[in-house]
């Protein structure tokens, strides 16, 4: 097993819980850490473009407040107190421009915080900036940002994955200790895998979507991108809640996301759905995955092949449901209430058509058109309703599998990070990047990606999928695997 050189003394690459110990022992203050994190962003982000905006004054003020809490005044400090966090730029930050990487929201300054942002602030986290993304979170490579693509810190000629590409690249490159992403079809897990960090989409509903700029409401879910699984559980504990401002949010039926974290998997029954290993998987990804199965076995898990025959159909279901919901959600952008507008001299109808035509990017227009077509008179039953019915069958298939298995394990992505530009002219090929992650959103399940080795010197991710509200089990499997390997301690040469 290859173990890369790591520089554990460099605070920018430490997991948050280790940084937190340094803050506790007064080896470091949160203010020093915030300044050094902002300096790190200034140093490396010209090359990466992972951070759309830093929040310097706000971060330093939050860091001072965190230092007070750490010294015993104010509310009891928690695991995130004083920790620098980046928030994907589709989550509203009061007083700080929030664009979802779209020209149509250029200049938009939300008057309120997203619920997750309020909860991070309550936890004492230091929000250092906003992460780049594919416009409105639509994409798998972060090439669809109106403000420039993001480069992968392991090889800057490659994409970081998407749509939370900025958040994943920033965690990998030491520009923050943790980040929040959003995941509609893999947008947390796929970039986490391609950048060599941990990313988790919790069970649908566990994290409030209030203040998240909506893409596909029945699939969207916010989650953490972190350096290790312990940090992932800590961030989830801070952000998960029932929220009266999001009617789809639910209280977790467990106390602590990290309640099952341990170093062995005795008696754990893991299934490997064969459909995730066939078409198009790169040999290097497959062999890294097979090695990770050996590690899981050595920890006491039983591993059995299984079959989820509808896996192939999940992509088709997704590419009807997600654009349909997006076409409705994005109808609010008309140049009247907020954001940017077309030039004057047009009547009311032309004005909003031109605003949308000029301000939306190529992928967003493509999805609005697919969704509008699928929802239009005469096609609704054949597309949207049909997709929702197959969605039911996919859910049932997972439910049946979880009567036999505690969790499923798969590769997170069939390929390593591809070269920037390689798939830009072929939307279908781009969509296939999410083939292993999409079924999890369709069924509302928890899924995590943990670093699981390298192929062609680029990171590969292992995905663990659990039943609804099986989030602690998913974290348990990921944690035991991680602790038995060194992959999470490697970092890019940037």
């Amino acid at each position, binding site marked *: 097993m290859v173990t890369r050189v790591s520089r554990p003394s460099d605070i920018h690459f430490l997991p948050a819980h280790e940084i937190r110990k340094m803050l506790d022992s007064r080896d470091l203050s949160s203010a020093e850490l915030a300044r050094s994190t902002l300096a790190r962003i200034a140093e490396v982000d010209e090359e990466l473009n992972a951070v759309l905006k830093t929040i310097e004054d706000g971060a330093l003020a939050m860091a001072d407040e965190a230092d007070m809490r750490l010294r015993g005044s104010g509310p009891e400090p928690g695991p995130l107190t004083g920790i620098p966090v980046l928030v994907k730029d589709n989550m509203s930050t009061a007083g700080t421009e929030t664009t979802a990487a779209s020209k149509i929201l250029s*200049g938009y*300054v939300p*008057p*309120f915080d997203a619920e997750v942002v309020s909860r991070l602030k309550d936890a004492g986290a230091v929000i250092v900036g906003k992460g780049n993304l594919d416009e409105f979170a639509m994409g798998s490579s972060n090439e669809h940002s109106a403000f420039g693509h993001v480069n992968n810190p392991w090889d800057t000629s490659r994409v970081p994955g998407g749509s939370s590409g900025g958040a994943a690249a920033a965690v990998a490159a030491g520009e923050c200790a943790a980040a929040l992403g959003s995941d509609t079809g893999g947008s947390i897990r796929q970039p986490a895998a391609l950048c060599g960090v941990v990313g988790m989409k919790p069970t*649908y*509903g566990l994290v409030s979507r209030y203040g998240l700029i909506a893409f596909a409401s*029945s699939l969207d879910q916010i989650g953490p991108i972190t350096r290790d699984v312990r940090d992932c559980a800590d961030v989830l504990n801070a952000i998960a809640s029932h929220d*009266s401002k999001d*009617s*789809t949010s*639910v209280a977790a039926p467990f106390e602590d996301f990290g309640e099952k974290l341990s170093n062995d998997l005795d008696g754990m029954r893991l299934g490997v759905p064969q459909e995730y290993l066939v078409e198009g998987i790169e040999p290097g990804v497959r062999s890294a995955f097979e090695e990770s199965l050996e590690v899981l076995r050595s920890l006491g898990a039983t591993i059995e092949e299984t079959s989820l025959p*509808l896996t192939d*159909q999940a*992509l*088709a*279901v997704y*590419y*009807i449901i997600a654009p349909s919901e997006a*076409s409705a959600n994005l*109808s609010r952008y008309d*140049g*009247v*209430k*907020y*954001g*940017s*507008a077309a030039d004057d001299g*047009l*009547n*009311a109808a032309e*004005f909003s*058509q*031109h605003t*949308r*035509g*000029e301000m*939306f990017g190529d992928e967003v*227009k*493509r999805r*609005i*058109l*697919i969704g*509008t*077509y699928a929802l*239009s008179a005469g096609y609704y039953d054949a*597309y949207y309703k*049909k*997709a*929702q*019915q*197959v*969605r*039911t*069958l996919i*859910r049932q298939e997972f439910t049946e599998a979880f009567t036999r298995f505690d969790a499923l394990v798969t590769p997170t992505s069939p390929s390593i990070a591809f070269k920037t530009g390689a798939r830009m002219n072929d*939307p*279908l090929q781009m969509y296939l990047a999410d083939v292993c992650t999409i079924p999890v959103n369709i*069924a*509302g*399940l928890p899924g995590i990606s943990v670093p699981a080795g390298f192929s062609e010197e680029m990171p590969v991710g292992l995905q663990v999928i659990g039943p609804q509200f099986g989030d602690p089990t998913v974290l348990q499997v990921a944690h035991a695997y991680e602790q038995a390997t060194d992959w999470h301690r490697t970092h890019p040469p940037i």
Partner: protein
Amino acid sequence: MESLTDDEVRYVARLANLHLTDEEVGKYRDQLTGILAHVQSLQEIDTSGVEPTGHATESTTVLRGDASEQPLEREEVLGNAPAVSGEFIRVRAVLD
């Protein structure tokens, strides 16, 4: 499945309140045709009697307490509008 026509793309764009250039119409005609052909595979699945899923998790409607809350200030809301006139958002004339 047959290829979409330019007129169908223009019709859908009008429904979506989206202005497209002629060049875009041609590009999206071809790409949408490809994507719609890909999702045709769903038609082969027997879904007779299957209930559609709107949301993947069970949820029931919960009503919050009937208590008043502080709304946003008018200035904060107007501050984001591209065109404002006094206390109002300015829009284009709908009727000539």
